[in-house]
């Protein structure tokens, strides 16, 4: 009897492991820091792009929603999402904070001159260190936060049309 239990448990264990492998095959998800959703951002201290001041939580508390967009002039996909950002700028309930990462001031300004400036606030993170505070690991990335500075959604890569619709739905409620 004892032998039968051992044999059965071994078989069940094998079936379990193989089963997990089967499911794992289909699951293969791309890494994204979606675990951040629901977290509150704190310790925001971004240097303003041109003026000699810092952007902190107080500035963002005033808005109902803020979209923080990390970009740079040397980043190709940033150009792709730029038109959508310009559209989002027109939304009433949403402010855009652009963080220019690891970029030269002139190049960044040229970029904005050529393609338009969708940002209500513009900050720079020359060494990229501050973007780590937001869980950023690549460019472009964007974070949608609400009035309480809670992360509603993270967008890895350029903002797509679907993302645009999603954001519109959230901010118009």
């Amino acid at each position, binding site marked *: 009897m004892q032998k039968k239990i051992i*044999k059965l448990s*071994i*078989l069940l264990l*094998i079936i379990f*492991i*193989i089963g*997990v*492998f*089967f*499911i*794992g*095959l*289909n*699951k*293969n*998800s791309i*890494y994204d820091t979606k675990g951040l959703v629901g977290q509150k951002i704190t310790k925001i201290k971004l240097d303003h792009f041109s003026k000699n001041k810092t952007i902190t939580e107080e500035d963002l508390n005033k808005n109902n929603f803020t979209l923080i967009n990390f970009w740079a002039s*040397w980043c190709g996909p940033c150009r792709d999402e730029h038109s959508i950002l310009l559209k989002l700028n027109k939304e009433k309930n949403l402010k855009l904070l652009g963080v220019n990462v*690891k970029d*030269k001031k002139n190049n960044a300004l040229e970029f904005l001159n050529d393609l338009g400036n969708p940002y209500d606030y513009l900050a720079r993170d020359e060494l990229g260190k501050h973007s780590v505070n937001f869980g950023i690991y690549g460019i472009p990335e964007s974070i949608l936060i609400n009035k309480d500075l809670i992360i509603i959604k993270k967008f890895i890569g350029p903002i797509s049309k679907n993302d645009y619709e999603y954001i519109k739905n959230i901010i118009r409620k």
Partner: protein
Amino acid sequence: MLTNIGNTLLFLNIFLGISIIYFSFQNLRNKKVLVSKNIYHICLFQSTFIIICFLTLVTGFIISDFSIITVYQNSHSLKPFFYKISGTWGNHEGSLLLWIIILTIFSFLFLLYNKNHPKNYRLYSLIVQNILILGFLSFLLFNSNPFSIILPTPKEGLGLNPILQDPALAIHPPLLYIGFVGSSIYFSAAIASLLTNYSGRLFAHSIKNWVLISWSFQTLGILAGSIWAYYELGWGGFWFWDPVENASLLPWFAMTALLHSLIVLEKRNLLYFWVIILCLLTFILSVTGTFLVRSGILNSVHTFANDPSRGLYILVFLSLMIFASVLLFFNKFKNSNYNLNSNSKETFILINNWFMIFYLITVLLGTIYPIFTEVLTDHKVSVGPPFYNTVIIPTVILFLFFMSVGPQAQWIKNKFHNLNLLFKILAASIFINFSIIYLFKSYSLISNFIIISAIFLVISSLIDLYKLFKTQKMDSSRVISHLAFGFLILFIGLNYNFSLEKDFNLKLGEREKFENYSVEFKDLRLEDFKNYKAVIGEFKINNSQKNLDQSLYPEIRIYENPSTITYEASIRSGLLKDYYITMSNIDRSDYYNIKFQKKPFMMWIWMSVIFISLGGFLRLFKNAKKDY
């Protein structure tokens, strides 16, 4: 034309495989004592055809026939000749063909070399092995066919990833495949043994040389992979506990355990069912490793390009293999009475197995755990070097002591150990360790234990070697392997503790100083090569204390086909240590990020592994001389 030849031969081999199985069953049923001649002939044809098929693919690579899909995807007319050839197996489809060659040739050779064993045992081995061959052949033909045609024929190929264009990596798959793919033959033999109740000493005798072959080559294959990683990947390490590396290590643990248990089975006719489990386990682990690496289920440095359908096929094949062998084993298992004295050689071999299984399960667990957390909890975790090092290293201390004492023990009942001698060796080890600390620098507590136990093993093995030499018994293979293993751990321990790593940014003309070393960024130039452009830096390394003055030339290589950038480390390998520099550019800056490393005893680490494997080959030749 080449594709036609290749495909025809593959289909032919499927037909041959089926006929071997058919004729073998026929042969089993008739009363003849000998295996019928036509089976030998078909096996010979099978091996010949698969070799020709493989050479056809190699030819395709050499002449750059881009109508063959594998050649198109993995080669380029400008590639150096040697790498055109090695490109044949440097990709998924080509390497599968290599799998099949090993399966086929081993099948034939096993049949030939087992003439002294019963017909039904040999035929069942042949049948099971051919089922495996057919499984892989159909996978190749219907999912991953290297001979698929591309029309219209592309003018140029996509090229082979430049980091794969390295001599160590070129021989790494063939070595490794003789290792873990070769283990298929004793998987099949184990099943045959269960089916025909052919057990005990005779069975051990039948498979032992095959286990030795696969173990020795597996050791060399793992070494080649580590050497490649060290010279090519640019981080100065040789083992990262990456899933692909673990996939080659898991069968090695099982093979080592098997190797030792076979000794007990042959000498004392004990542990038969445990040996069967190990035989089945080794090849199952090999296929599992292949599954983990090629299905894309795990994230790793050097995976092949991924395709879920591959993963599905391999998993189905693996599941069938596992269920068939486990169910058969349960059916045939008989409890035996063990009469083991706690102080005997048998016990020490069991202890070896205990540790091997522990390492096996630890590495397996660490490798597949992320899959479980992701599937069951939607949580992604990483399991890397800190986990493996923390769990494994402390036990190595004990293991080394057992390795020193075990071989001295006698069979059945050990006479009293020469405790006196053991204490002397221990004292000497502690003294040597203390001298190292005194003369150079000290290190962590665990390192102390590791180095002491490694020295202990080295000294005991040297004493053994001396005794052997005096009595002129030439069975040095075990001593050599154990001695080399002791040295390996010793050198790894010393390398780990005496390595120096510095990471800093430099501009051309600048110099960085640290700990008596000075690194000067002297020159930077751009050079054109056959299939890449290189940015070569010249770094002058000085050490006033050691009278060192050397130049190293790390490169940043820009390849066109495919378009990649690689960072070539510049390594000055010396008898006592290697100097190692990698240089990478920092975007939008004049600074370069420099990693400087001083790595002691690298040559000795490689040599130790070669000698571990040499022990295996020595034993193999001794056996071959005796038997044939």
